[in-house]
């Protein structure tokens, strides 16, 4: 995405710092991070353990606020917001995908996907259901609407989680090690899905420690010790679908 200037800025970090007080010591988890992410980018954020990935993701997800610096999400300054204002912002502008899916137990796919809309009074029960069904179709689960979370495979559960992240038509999808619990084949299936969403114009930020995944994204940010070490645009995006096809069949299903 070299023509970023013409694109809309979805996320802007200005020298974001996050300090944690642990006893008498102060841990600097983020030591001044600045970047812009434009609409339609698929960004991977990588780094070793302890490099500040989770802390950064919590900032981006409006779950936490910077000690210093500014964060604008879709043009809105997040640092000065109250807790419930941030809750509303998450509800309208962010879709989360977690490593361990985090579906509601014994709950159908549709109800799981509709959950974010429960906290948006603009939707009534029928509209919630319709939106949930549409999102499930988009992730290829149109035939599993009423399956309960405990009747599904890991891949299916992660698809439900992705559908849940899509249902509110967010400004950005934040994925935290979204393939971390899946086998190789299913991981590639997820990447195929993320690439499909990327093609459809979604903005995606994918946190991972797996360097291979960077090949399939449009941009890669490397963190070390709470700072950006590298921020490169990937001009040679690989097709996850091709990689999936190249996998030996029945390898680890």
């Amino acid at each position: 995405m070299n023509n970023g200037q013409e694109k809309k800025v979805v996320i802007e970090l200005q020298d974001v710092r996050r300090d944690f007080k642990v006893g008498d010591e102060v841990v600097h988890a983020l030591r001044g991070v600045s970047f812009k992410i434009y609409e339609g980018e698929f960004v991977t954020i990588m780094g070793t353990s302890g490099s500040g990935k989770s802390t950064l993701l919590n900032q981006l997800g409006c779950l936490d606020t910077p000690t210093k610096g500014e964060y604008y999400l879709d043009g809105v300054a997040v640092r000065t917001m109250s807790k419930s204002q941030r809750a509303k912002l998450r509800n309208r502008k962010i879709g989360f995908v977690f490593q361990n899916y985090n579906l509601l137990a014994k709950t159908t796919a549709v109800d799981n996907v509709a959950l974010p809309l429960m906290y948006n009074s603009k939707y009534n029960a029928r509209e919630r259901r319709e939106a949930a069904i549409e999102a499930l179709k988009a992730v290829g689960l149109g035939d599993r609407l009423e399956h309960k979370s405990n009747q599904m495979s890991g891949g299916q559960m992660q698809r439900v989680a992705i559908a849940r992240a899509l249902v509110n038509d967010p400004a950005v999808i934040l994925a935290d090690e979204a393939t971390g619990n899946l086998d190789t084949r299913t991981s590639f299936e997820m990447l195929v899905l993320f690439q499909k969403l990327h093609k459809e114009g979604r903005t995606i930020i994918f946190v991972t420690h797996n360097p291979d995944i960077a090949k399939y994204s449009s941009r890669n940010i490397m963190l070390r010790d709470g700072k950006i070490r590298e921020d490169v645009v990937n001009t040679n995006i690989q097709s996850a679908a091709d990689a999936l096809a190249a996998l030996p069949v029945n390898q680890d299903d």
Partner: protein
Amino acid sequence: MTAIANNAFRSFLSMLGIIIGVAAVIIMMAIGQGSKQSIRAEISKMGTNIINIRPGARQRGGVRLDPSAMQTLKVEDYEAIVNNKKYVTYVSPEVTASGQCIFGANNTSTTMYGESLEYLDIKQWELKDGDCFTDDDIRKGAKVCVIGQTIVEELFSNTNPVGKNIRFKSIPFKVIGVLKEKGENSWGMDQDNVIVAPYTTVMKRLNAQTYFSSITCSAITEEMTDNAIDELTAVLRENHKIREGADDDFSINSQAEMMDTMSSTMDTITVILVVAAAFSLLVAGIGIMNIMLVSVTERTKEIGLRMSVGARGIDISNQFLIESIMISLTGGILGILLGWLLTLAANAIGLPASIPAWSILVSFAVCTVIGVGFGYFPAKKAASLDPIEAIRYE
């Protein structure tokens, strides 16, 4: 709500306290109400607006002296009451004697009540056979009597006693009337084991005494009871030449007063029982709080998820508050049903019990308050969780 269903058994266990507590409150109130009603009914069956005058001062809390040892109620008092009555309709002095009553080979022990003609009107007793004695009988001290159904059964089997002579304490009395059967009163006293005779006869021929053991009157209406008591007090104080400020040497009790005393005693007992039952509701509320705290801990991850997808603190606390209200209200409804079944059971074994309508409303209100009150702290705790920590919780 799905959480309640998913944990049906546990929710039921935490409801159990509420169910039992509410049922206990309901049955206590029902028994209180029922007993009050039946005691009132019983007291009003004892006669119309009865006022009782006894010799000797009324003593509060202290030991009451034996009334028979006090001889302050005399014939002159009776006459003064009759001559001055305004708020009083009927008056009957009372002298009693207990002893053996014999007819032929049969005998029974009973009490003879020496009364005036008006006694039957005061007590609302009716004759089944024969007549009551007359003014003339009273003037002469005639040895005539009216007997109750128990005496008829004990002495006469199935024959008609009217016109027969019985002996009471060796003195012959002619039976001139038979009272209708009245049965036992609520404290198990046989009201048919009585002989009523002219008070003059019992005073002179049986007891050889010049004073009454009591005087029974009836007020014109229940509302006039107080006026009647004032009137009687004034007459007796004047008759006994009691100076102003000095204590009465007699005591007056009314049926209305007795009813009030009984009612308020029943109310006190009911309140004590209900408060005891209500304490079990407090314990039940703590049980609900406990289960809600466990639920919050167990569902920390779910709370974290809900918060990350946009639930505000208030959304989370409402979710848990509604849950605890649901548990306590469901428990309340089941408790009301159980209380109702217990009331039916109480009625079936002859205990008077009737559920006052307001106690159901109170139960609902109390359960809602318990739900909110004891759900508040767990709900607050859930709402104050940090979503970052919560979603990582295992």
